[in-house]
């Protein structure tokens, strides 16, 4: 479930590598193509709405996400349905807490975690891959061998050890996960860099005496942006999925904070006890978000990859 999209991204990488770098007009072209892709645009709109929901939700909610409605506590199945009257727009959870406020809170955490995790993976992966690709030779082969070795370590194993050691902080967990999810990124970026580094403008930079690291940062990385953006949109949903897995193990975010994964896990457990809304609301947001990310990712790939229209 965590190993998808390799082929597509690699293909894109190849294609991008073959394209001449045409400056701004390529981006404008891409933007135009993207805006014509209805699915991708819809995805973007939905994502925008969900971010908006997470941002202004706390001001709309009638309850705080950690407050217990003592009058309804323990009566979720019979009296906890979604209701405008008592302020529980999404109903309540098993303990009598407002599910609307909790879904808002969960959205914040899940989006945050997805973004941070992906960001870390992207930053490390890009710098690592660009360095390896640019310097080439022995540096490259040592760096990429290291990636090969790290890739063969079962991912889940690390995840569980990280949970055990950093169990108390969700942010730390995701820095950890982000830090081991950069491998794929590094590989792709390196491949890209190999094709970029022989370009005239790089040679010109070298000739004018710019220091190697500055070349990597100023001239190589910006030209990798297309592939990086596409890959990042695919990493975010991966991170959100990973978070839900951690929540399933009961090792995720600490109460009373929550996440989509934690809410879904609770809801799935009580699915057959007549409190279906506890599953449907968080699950709806979860699926809508991931779906949107995939469509946006696909749209971006199509847009940035003119060959495949």
């Amino acid at each position, binding site marked *: *479930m*965590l*190993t*998808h*999209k*390799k*082929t*597509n991204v690699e*293909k894109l990488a190849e294609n991008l590598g073959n394209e001449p770098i045409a400056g701004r007009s390529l981006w404008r072209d891409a933007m135009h193509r993207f805006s014509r892709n209805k*699915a991708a645009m819809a995805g973007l709109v939905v994502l925008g709405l969900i971010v908006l929901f997470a941002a202004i939700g706390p001001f709309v909610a009638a309850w705080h996400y950690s407050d217990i409605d003592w009058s309804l506590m323990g009566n979720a199945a019979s009296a906890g349905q979604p209701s405008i009257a008592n302020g529980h727009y999404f109903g309540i959870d098993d303990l009598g807490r407002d599910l609307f406020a909790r879904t808002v809170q969960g959205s914040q955490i899940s989006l945050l975690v997805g973004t941070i995790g992906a960001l870390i993976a992207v930053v490390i992966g890009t710098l690592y891959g660009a360095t390896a690709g640019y310097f080439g030779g022995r540096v490259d082969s040592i760096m990429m*061998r290291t990636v*090969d*070795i790290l*890739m*063969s*370590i*079962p*991912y*889940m*194993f*690390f995840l*569980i*050890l990280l949970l*055990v*050691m950093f169990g108390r902080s969700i942010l730390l967990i995701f820095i950890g996960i982000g830090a081991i999810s950069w491998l794929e990124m590094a590989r792709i970026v390196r491949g890209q860099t190999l094709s970029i580094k022989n370009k005239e403008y790089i040679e010109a930079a070298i000739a004018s005496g710019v220091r190697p690291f500055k070349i990597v940062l100023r001239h190589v990385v910006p030209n990798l942006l297309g592939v990086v953006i596409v890959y990042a949109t695919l990493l975010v*949903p991966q991170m959100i*999925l990973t978070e*839900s*897995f951690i929540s*399933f*193990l009961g090792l995720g975010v600490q109460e009373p904070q929550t996440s989509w*994964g934690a809410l*879904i*896990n609770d809801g*799935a*457990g009580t*699915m*057959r006890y007549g409190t279906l809304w506890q*599953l449907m609301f968080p*699950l709806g947001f*979860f*699926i809508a978000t*991931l*779906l949107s990310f*995939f*469509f946006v990712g*696909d749209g971006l790939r199509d847009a940035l990859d003119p060959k*495949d229209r």
Partner: protein
Amino acid sequence: MFNFVLRRIAVAIPTLLILVSVSFFLMFSAPGGPFTSERPIPAAVMENINAKYNLDKPVYQQLSIYIWNIVTEFDFGPSFRYQDRDVLDLIQSGFPVTLTYGFWAFVFAVGIGVSLGVIAALKHNTAADYTAVSVAIVGQVLPNFVMAPILVLIFVLWLGWLPGGGWQGGQIEYIILPAIALGTSFLASIARITRSSMLEVLNSNYIRTARAKGLPFRYIIWRHALKPAMLPVVSYLGPAFVGMITGSVIIDSYFTTGGIGVHFINGALNRDYAVIMGVTILLGTLTITFNMLVDIIYAWIDPKIRY
């Protein structure tokens, strides 16, 4: 070619050694140990336990003993938790279970995924395309731990067709639900890969030529397009296979099939060091082997690739 294969194998062995060492040290840095219990064990007894399992020695020494036993006797040691079982016993009983329903999960995922992908490609950018892709993605993003109870609700409680869990030596009715629950998470990837490679093939010159010649479209799809479009799917099966084993963690614990996934998660939670190491080595070896095979096959197909 032969040299290339040799070199890959030569790299694989130190890779595995590094993997084992890193895991070993990481494992020992986790709080608690296999004999951490609610009732503190008397110091004298604890000493005996530690001596029995070599836990009183420095970690690097334990590591070398461990590797030595594997290399010389293929002995992965006894489970720290299940005293009448060796790690090999557990792997031998658990791995076939995971492999069996994993295989059927694959058959399911490839069957549905390829169909959805082909439909999406043929009806590119239509409602059918979006529907197929959405169905596939919903299957992928619906976490296993939601999928599994939904399946149980439908097939066990409402329809009463299938048992809700267990393995019973692998009778067919016990395989179906775990296979579907696991398969849905790979279905989407397969559908998406199929879709894009199918699109590419359909736009290629030889398909255009075939169409220009006036061959029936259906015939072109079956005879000319499908096969090349499947190549990327086949190469995806390697990493997906490893992902499947990790995905089995949830499936095994929900359906209690006794598969390898549950040994892994319980091993980590119980700090059953020997089991964690055993499963890690198994997974690591598989991952390395599959990566190697993929590389070798690619090198064989495309001589331009140089490593």
